[in-house]
């Protein structure tokens, strides 16, 4: 059924809200990590229990996207109209009957419950302990992403209705400019300004693109939004299209996210049926069409000119800017490219106003940012926080600190283009400028936490290996320079480092930064530069003493059996290359010529009898 006007939308949404529903809503987290962790089995158990005990009237089961509590998947949440709720983590199918019997009165025994650590600034004030403010993730984990009615019931598409029927394109741009929303994909360019450049181009064919090529390893917030709330992106793109005068939108998504693709395709189909996309939206005369284009595994396609070439069916090589895409983009027409998280802020800003948005975050970077916490952190997951929160709060209060009681060493932000942040900057209030000032960057918001067992030279090598591999090969500084830098780092980590190599590494970093064509190349040396700035002693230990202080670089370490050995033989059993021998109940020996330094014996020994030096 098509919805033809804002009034009809409001009426439809009100009717949906008033629909008869069961007293308890049971949300089941069905995002990629939830499914991989076994949520499907839990869902089956829930549905089975309901059918068996005829509880259809008592529970509404809703399959939702990621709640951000990835460390505790499978996650389910029981909630009612009065705001009562219980969140369960690490749920097994066996626990389901107890959970269903307990309802909302008290948590079932023998389960793991989790306190909600977020609030929704659009309609709530934070309670004690609710450090996260969810705007981008407002529906992710709350509604069924495959049912557009649930999005509409939460006020979905009302911002689009308002925009196309009662605002002029310039007024829309003014609101977004006034909110000072900045691009969440990395560099933080003001979104309103980007839109105004494209809007200022003469009328004619224009495009609006969503960059859903979340290539930054360790960042998964865009996946969560696309899987959990795809309509938020569609609505925002239609609003952006109206603002700049584009009638065609393209979502460029990576092929590694099949579930997100499926949910987007489904959302587009449902939005077309309702008349939210297509011809004459809300009777305003505005037409807007969306299509999905696929990436094929190329990190550089996150760069907007490369992305545009990829949509055109070409190799995803970047080109020099200017001309900027806003002037000459897809098929040489004016084009706006924003990322998923940026779009996910738009409808809320239209509904609540620019001042409301500016009430969160810092003066220079208003609003919130979603961070993907991963690595050696206890609570791996998504955290959407107001800009300006300190790293200490994010890592320790939200992330639960370092895993297994180890010592914090550094956190890498900004992915392969960013840098590492050490203990001394844990109390920095983070926003775009603050991160830049300490040699890192916001990037897409991945935060990889590292502990004392991580070798920073090895980490730098990992990132360089990544960029050298992903370099498109067009410009020499990136294609050849990064390769040479990787070779230098390989020498250092394999014990062949000299001071000359060390100096060369520094010079080469600076040269590549100055001369590469696009963002990928220019920022490729950042991980080296920032680890050099913060952990020079570790580099020097590798270069001068041929020692890896963290005990990671295989060529610089040796495993030996100590006198603590009781001769249990477990290490010999675990050794994949048969390098360990010894009589039962006698001290074992490692054949150093055979040893591949995988550390299997070290990890296996229950008596701490293997020494790593």
């Amino acid at each position, binding site marked *: 059924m098509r919805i033809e006007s804002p009034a009809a939308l409001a009426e439809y949404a009100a009717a949906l809200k008033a629909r008869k529903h069961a007293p308890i809503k049971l949300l089941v987290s069905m995002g990629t990590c939830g499914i991989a962790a076994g949520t499907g089995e839990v869902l089956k158990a829930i549905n089975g229990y309901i059918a068996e005990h005829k509880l259809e009237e008592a529970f509404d089961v809703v399959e939702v996207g990621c709640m951000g509590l990835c460390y505790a998947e499978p996650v389910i949440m029981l909630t009612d109209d009065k705001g009562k709720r219980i969140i369960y983590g690490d749920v097994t199918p066996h626990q389901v009957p107890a959970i269903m019997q307990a309802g909302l009165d008290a948590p079932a025994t023998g389960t793991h419950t989790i306190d909600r650590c977020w609030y929704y600034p659009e309609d709530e004030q934070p309670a004690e302990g609710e450090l996260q403010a969810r705007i981008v993730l407002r529906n992710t984990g709350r509604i069924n992403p495959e049912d557009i009615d649930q999005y509409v019931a939460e006020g979905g598409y009302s911002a689009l209705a308002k925009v196309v029927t009662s605002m002029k394109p310039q007024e829309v741009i003014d609101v977004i400019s006034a909110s000072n929303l900045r691009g969440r994909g990395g560099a933080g360019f003001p979104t309103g300004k980007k839109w105004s450049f494209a809007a200022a181009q003469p009328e004619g064919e224009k495009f609006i693109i969503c960059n859903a090529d979340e290539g930054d390893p360790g960042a998964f917030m865009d996946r969560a939004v696309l899987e959990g709330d795809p309509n938020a992106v569609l609505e925002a793109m239609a609003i952006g299209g109206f603002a700049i005068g584009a009638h065609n939108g393209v979502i460029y998504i990576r*092929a590694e996210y099949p579930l997100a693709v499926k949910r987007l395709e489904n959302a587009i189909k449902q939005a077309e049926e309702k008349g939210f996309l297509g011809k004459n939206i809300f009777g305003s005369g505005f037409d807007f069409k969306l299509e999905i284009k696929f*990436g094929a595994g190329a990190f550089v396609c996150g760069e907007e000119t490369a992305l545009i070439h990829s949509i055109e069916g070409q190799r995803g090589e970047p080109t020099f800017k200017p001309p900027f895409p806003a002037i000459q983009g897809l098929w040489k027409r004016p084009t706006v490219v924003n990322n998923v998280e940026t779009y996910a802020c738009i409808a809320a800003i239209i509904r609540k106003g620019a001042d409301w948005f500016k009430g969160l975050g810092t003066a220079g970077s208003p609003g919130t940012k979603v961070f993907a916490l991963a690595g050696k952190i206890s609570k791996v997951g998504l955290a959407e926080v107001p800009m300006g929160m300190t790293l200490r709060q994010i890592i320790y209060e939200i992330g639960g600190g370092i895993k297994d009681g180890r010592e914090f060493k550094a956190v890498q932000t900004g992915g392969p283009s960013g840098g590492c942040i050490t203990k001394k900057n844990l109390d920095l209030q983070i926003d775009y400028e603050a991160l830049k000032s300490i040699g890192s960057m916001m990037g897409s918001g991945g935060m990889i936490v590292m502990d004392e067992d991580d070798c920073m030279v090895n980490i730098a090598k990992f990132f360089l290996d990544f960029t050298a591999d992903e370099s498109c090969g067009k410009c020499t500084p990136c294609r050849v320079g990064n390769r040479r830098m990787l070779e230098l780092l390989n020498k250092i980590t394999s014990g062949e480092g000299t001071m000359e190599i060390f100096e060369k590494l520094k010079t080469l970093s600076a040269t590549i930064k100055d001369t590469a064509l696009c963002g990928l190349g220019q920022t490729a040396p950042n991980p080296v530069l920032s680890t050099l700035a913060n952990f020079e002693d570790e580099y020097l230990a590798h270069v001068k003493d041929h020692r890896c202080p963290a005990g990671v670089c295989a060529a610089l370490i040796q495993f030996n059996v100590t006198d603590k050995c009781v001769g249990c033989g477990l290490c010999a059993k675990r050794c994949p290359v048969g390098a360990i021998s010894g009589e039962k109940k006698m001290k074992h020996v490692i054949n150093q010529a055979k040893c591949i330094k995988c550390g299997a014996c070290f990890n296996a020994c229950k008596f701490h009898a293997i020494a790593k030096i």
Partner: protein
Amino acid sequence: MGEMHCVNGVCEISSRKSSQMEELDAYIKSLPLADNPTRKRGFLIQTLHRAQSIFGYLPVEVQSFVAERLGISLAEVYGVISFYSFFTDKPIGRYAINVCTGTACFVKGAAQVVDELKRKLGVSEGETTADGKFFLGVLRCLGACSMAPVVMVNGKVYGHMTAEKVQGLLDDCKD
């Protein structure tokens, strides 16, 4: 995905080629190419995705077929295939084992898992075993960082991998 018959690592598609070609042909015909005569190549990447899912890989006759239909040269099609890591012009094993080597998986020990797989299978990254059973690849971040390190076998995700668990994973792959 079309079935492949592999002998000594060489996968024969000829027995099914005509029906597979028909499937690809039907797909290309379903695209709105006529609406955009000057922008036909914009459909190239999605067509290659479809072709690879039909054939399992992109042999040269498929490449020239696509080139001809989209009005571009074979060299341009090959240029695109060789640029994107998702596309392959060589047949791959029946079990595609892809180890995630994103940052989170890296710091949790993905390198040890890759090393163990290389040792067990006797192949390098990007290669298929001689019996045509296993392909070993790496990919960059599946976004399942909470279960790092992660390995994907034909679309199924295995979390919290270790070198010790590799044998079990291989044993799971039964023909």
